[in-house]
């Protein structure tokens, strides 16, 4: 049993579609006020997990409690406590920004005067007060996303779920969304659950991160600790001219004292090293000795991308060959819980 200040408590959660386990025995807690992130590639199970936590999908096994309520036992009660921003933009294009927000307020039976005040305040926070009476069809993608995040806060939820909130946005709009999320978090004392496959987003926003792949949590901790737990402090990225050279080069450089780990991906080698600036030249010499020809080389400090690669042995990639339903995210046969 988790502590009383946990807003989300998940234990052994499973979702199967036929024989395929999209979420495979996931366990974690999210304490009140935390900005919690799920980082993983497309098809890792993030959206399926969010759909279970937000009552759209019935779990096959395990238990999930949100805001103290079991999602399987009382989905209607859970819906009153949560705000959910799905992956697709779902604001109504034929309504104005204000009408979209007002509609949600009415769904939660908020009295009209209180609704008006809340909507006014939310529009001020997202910086769209001057556009609130314009049709959403005239909004940019970034503006729509800001509106949709504000829209689910009209009823002051306890926890906010965001499924890939910045997907498809340009870098400027993405940063604007991040700023508003921070603002909302402070203003509304929110617990935020974010799923993303953007490393920078996960690193800059989240207090703690779970890396998920193939439906399982691989590792869970704060971004800083995840990085500090990696061996070495720099990454030297090598691209060799020939795939056949990868294996002998990898074997050779693994034996170097300053090399902590080597991850091969195609013709690329990602070498986790101590003090990359100093050990750069000896590394290249060893590669040459092993018969490798280097086409390109780069050096950078450890990032979340490296954390992901270290734990999964691969970089975040697009899952190929699976038909993805753009609008619901998971693209798997889905049976809703009601």
């Amino acid at each position, binding site marked *: 049993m988790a502590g009383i200040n946990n807003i989300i408590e998940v234990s052994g959660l499973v979702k199967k579609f036929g024989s395929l386990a999209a979420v495979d025995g996931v366990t974690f807690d999210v304490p009140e006020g935390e900005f919690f992130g799920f980082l993983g590639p497309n098809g890792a199970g993030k959206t399926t997990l969010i759909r279970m936590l937000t009552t759209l999908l019935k779990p096959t096994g395990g238990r999930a409690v949100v805001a103290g309520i079991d999602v399987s036992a009382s989905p209607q009660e859970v819906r009153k406590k949560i705000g959910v921003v799905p992956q697709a933009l779902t604001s109504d294009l*034929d309504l104005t920004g204000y009408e979209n927000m007002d*509609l949600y307020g009415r769904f939660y039976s908020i009295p009209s005067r209180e609704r008006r005040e809340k909507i006014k305040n939310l529009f001020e926070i997202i910086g769209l007060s001057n556009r609130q009476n314009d*049709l959403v069809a005239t909004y940019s993608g970034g503006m729509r996303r800001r509106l949709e995040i504000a829209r689910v806060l009209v009823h002051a939820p306890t926890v906010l779920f965001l499924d890939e909130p910045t997907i498809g946005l340009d870098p400027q709009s993405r940063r604007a969304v991040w700023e508003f999320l921070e603002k909302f978090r402070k203003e509304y004392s929110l617990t935020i659950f974010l799923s993303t496959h953007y490393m920078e987003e996960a690193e800059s926003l989240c207090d703690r991160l779970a890396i998920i792949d193939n439906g399982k949590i691989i590792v869970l901790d704060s971004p800083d600790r995840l990085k500090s737990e990696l061996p070495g402090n720099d990454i030297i990225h090598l691209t060799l001219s020939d795939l056949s050279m990868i294996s002998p080069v990898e074997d050779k450089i693994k034996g170097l004292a300053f090399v902590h780990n080597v991850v091969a991906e195609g013709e690329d080698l990602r070498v986790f090293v101590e003090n990359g600036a100093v050990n750069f030249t000896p590394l290249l010499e060893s590669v040459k000795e092993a018969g490798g020809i280097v086409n390109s080389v780069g050096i950078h400090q450890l990032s979340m991308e490296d954390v992901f690669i270290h734990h999964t042995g691969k970089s975040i990639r697009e899952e190929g060959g699976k038909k993805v339903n753009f*609008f619901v995210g998971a693209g798997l046969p889905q049976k809703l819980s009601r």
Partner: protein
Amino acid sequence: MTRLLAIIERDIKKFVRNPIVVIMSLVMPIVYLVILGNSFQGKLKGLPLAIVDQDSGIYSRRLIDNLRAVEAGARTVSIHMLNDQNAALTGVRNGVYKSALIIPPGFTKSANLRKEPDVGLFLDNTDTVSSIAIKALVNSALNSVREEHVPVRDKPYEFYARNIELYSMVDYYQTLVPGVVIMAIFLGTMTAGVFNLVMDRFLGIDESYLLTPLSKTDIVSGLVISGLFITTLIAFVVLIVSMLITGIPFSKGIEQMFSIFMIIVLTTLALLSLMFVILGRATHPRIVGLSSGFLNVIFFFPSGAIYPIESFPAWLRAFAKVNPEAYAVHALKSVLFKGAGLDVILGDIIFLLIFTNVMMVIAILSFKRTM
């Protein structure tokens, strides 16, 4: 209730804010009425008939006079007198004439000798409607050829039927009005009903609503009520405009007005629920667009709006028995043209009620699986 009202208000706002949809919903049935009413008018007129009189006797002239009388009166044919038989036949083959009547030499003589006088009637039988009409017309004119001019007192005793029309005169143009109103209802249920449902699903809007305390019942009820409101309004506007265009008098009593209202509301509910059953699980609005014309043909033409159901082949008559549009057209015709009361249309009303309930249950079961 607040949630339900919010959904209804949203749908009405969305409909009103799409003027093209509003205009198409109103104008299309009326344009249909005007085009169909003027291009397919029930009575055939001005069919070009070539006549070559190679006899020039008393009976051939009498035959031509009989046909001239039709040309001047009912105007079913327009007569073109030719001298050359080949020119007449070529004209039929080239589509200049619908038919060529060749009266051979000796026609009058044969008639005088009480033999079997015959004429040649060359028909463009690729145009079935015209050729049947001309054939009947010429046969009738031929049968009258032998009638002599005799004093009335000497006229032989005849049987004849006295035509008594039970209702005030209704022309073909007016008979189309019930069908056009039902067509407006059909279009309304597509644009204001099922299209909204599928579009919301396509855009992920309905799913985002299901993340709020809004229930499926709220969403479906909201769609049905807003669809009913918008479609009823469209149907009444189309009915009034059609009555003005075709000259149907507005002198209806309260009972008849109530009957018309009930027929429109029940037909809307029946078609809304039927469309939800047929298209409610569609995942792309394009499917609704493509199906619209197809479904309109399937339900509109076997409704009796244009042609009497009794003349259909057995299989189509069987379909008409379960076609809600057939009951709606029958009820609306009865009230509009016969001044029928509720007792006369009770059977139609009961069918529409049962049909709506059955379809609604299927639609809700279907939604539970798909939403």
